[in-house]
């Protein structure tokens, strides 16, 4: 295709992506270097029946004017990055000095909002992703061995957790695990503990969110693996059988290597999606015990009265860096493979 023609075909798509994906990233970086204006304070003398007092009062009009003139706020350099709500260099340093051992240092750092969110996001990503791959593969093997009539309905049902809106899916489960819901009360009966609540303890909340994550994403891995299983070369399987390979050996040496590229694909998509975990926290109202990077950004900007763009920007930049670090190995692999195929 001629360069000119290519350009005109791709242009609309490229413009939207540059305007609404590339530029916002720039905007986020700029925002992260600025901070909101401080409120303008006036000293006012207040006289009452008990004498006069000098008070500092916020000058609403002046503050508003300042905000209007320069909505971005004032330049703050990397100040936002290093403050307590983000990388918290000072607090970390202090924790390092004060802590007696490595464990107490970790637990002190986990009191800081950014590190708390980072810890949950990483744990979620690295626990949910392998489980999704594992369960997806098992379900695919299972469905593949069903009689033909049952395959269609089984696939239909298996797709449901994935297709449903994440927020709605987590709400549905949230209501069931409520202390007065079906799962919640059955668990109370099993453990014989009328006060058992999955929402109260941080550990149980984390487990609950991850179980939800696996429930929600396994269908995706399942369906991709299932499609891959349809294309396993039957010649190779037969050859392996003639050579006396058992079922397990055939799965291990023929089926799994055949599915390897698919595994990489699922891994790539799952790492991206799990790292942005956000809706389940809203759905499960789990913010007291578990926050993710996406959630703290949302928390900074969702309040209509006070929006902290600088803070949200800094967390966003750190999140983008996190995603990049996470994906570089997989991206390089995709890059190489694609290069091999295309060129």
């Amino acid at each position: 295709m001629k360069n000119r023609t290519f350009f005109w075909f791709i242009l609309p798509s490229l413009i939207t992506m540059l305007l609404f994906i590339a530029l916002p990233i720039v905007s986020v970086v700029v925002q992260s270097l600025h901070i909101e204006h401080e409120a303008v304070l006036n000293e006012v003398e207040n006289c009452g029946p008990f004498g006069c007092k000098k008070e500092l009062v916020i000058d609403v009009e002046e503050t508003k004017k300042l905000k209007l003139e320069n909505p971005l706020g004032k330049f703050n350099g990397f100040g936002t990055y290093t403050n307590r709500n983000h990388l918290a260099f000072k607090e970390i340093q202090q924790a390092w000095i004060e802590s007696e051992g490595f464990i107490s240092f970790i637990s002190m750092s986990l009191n800081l909002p950014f590190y708390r969110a980072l810890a949950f996001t990483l744990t979620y990503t690295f626990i949910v992703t392998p489980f999704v791959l594992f369960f997806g593969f098992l379900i695919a093997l299972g469905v593949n061995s069903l009689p033909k009539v049952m395959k269609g309905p089984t696939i239909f049902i298996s797709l449901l957790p994935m297709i449903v809106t994440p927020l709605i899916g987590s709400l549905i489960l949230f209501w069931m695990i409520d202390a007065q819901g079906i799962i919640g009360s059955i668990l109370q009966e099993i453990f014989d503990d009328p006060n058992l609540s999955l929402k109260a303890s941080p550990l149980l909340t984390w487990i609950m969110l991850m179980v939800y994550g696996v429930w929600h994403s396994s269908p995706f891995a399942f369906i991709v693996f299932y499609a891959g299983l349809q294309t396993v070369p039957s010649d190779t399987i037969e050859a392996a059988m003639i050579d006396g390979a058992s079922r397990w050996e055939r799965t291990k040496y023929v089926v799994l290597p055949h599915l390897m590229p698919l595994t990489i694909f699922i891994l790539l998509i799952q790492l991206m999606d799990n790292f942005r975990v956000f809706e389940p926290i809203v759905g499960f109202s789990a913010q007291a015990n578990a926050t993710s990077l996406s959630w703290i950004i949302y928390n900074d900007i969702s309040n209509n009265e006070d929006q902290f763009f600088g803070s949200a920007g800094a967390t966003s930049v750190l999140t983008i860096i996190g995603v990049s670090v996470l994906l570089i190995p997989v991206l390089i692999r995709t890059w190489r493979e694609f290069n091999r195929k295309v060129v």
Partner: protein
Amino acid sequence: MPSLAQRRSPVLNMIIWGFVLVWIIAASFPFFWTLWGSFKVQGDFFSKADWTNAITGVRTQVETGGAFTGSGYFGAWITKSFWLAAINTGIIVFSVVIISLTLGTLGGYALARSGKRYAFYLLMLALVFRAMPHITLVSGYLLPFFEWNLWGHIPTAIIVMVAINQPFTLWMLHSFFLNIPKDLDESAMVDGCTRFQAFRHVIIPVMWPGVVTTGLFSFLLAYNDFTVTATLLSQANQTMVPKIASFLGTTQTEGNVMFAVAAVVSATAPLFILILFFQRQIVSGLTAGAVKG
């Protein structure tokens, strides 16, 4: 016909089918439970006394006189004007799908036919864009949108979602177009068509299966979105998902959680119907991206 050696032992069969059965229950039961419960009163769905009340509907009998009640639905759709959110969702989803597909087919076609190095770089760039968490992008939009008075309007949310959708749409359509033989449009160009005419008269008539599948995924993305619609839309233009989220805060205190339950069921129903009719396309779409591309 499976040969004798391929037959599994009955024990293995039992294990596999048992596992699939457990999965099917885990995947479907929550939906049936919530659908059933949405026709009960709160005292049954969240029963303090006994969870089986949700099945038998003891309190529902007492409070409404029948075993089922539509009061949750009435409350959500009429009292809390969920219908408005449903209309907004309809407008947004329809526009996002149409615009995404238009831009995506053009771009995807170009990427599939280019064969140049830069087309590959663009695809990798799209992959990187796909990785960006949506909330980080949204936090970049807010301030400029406030300044330029773009915040809160439906068209803004539409164009933002189209953009966020583009990387995926491009990848998917690109791999679909790769499967359409090159000879088709090239022979049309030999006959004197321009590239665009070849696209218009030769490619468009044969591209529909791929477009339908990609459209389904655009639909899902727009329909299921919470991040963009919750932060970029004003109260009046709110769509279903953020509306349900806002129900949570208000209904918990007012004691009508059932409104939210009914709204959740209402918002899920279209998705069920969608898979019912398009299951084949969804499966083929997910696999086209993975198995071939």
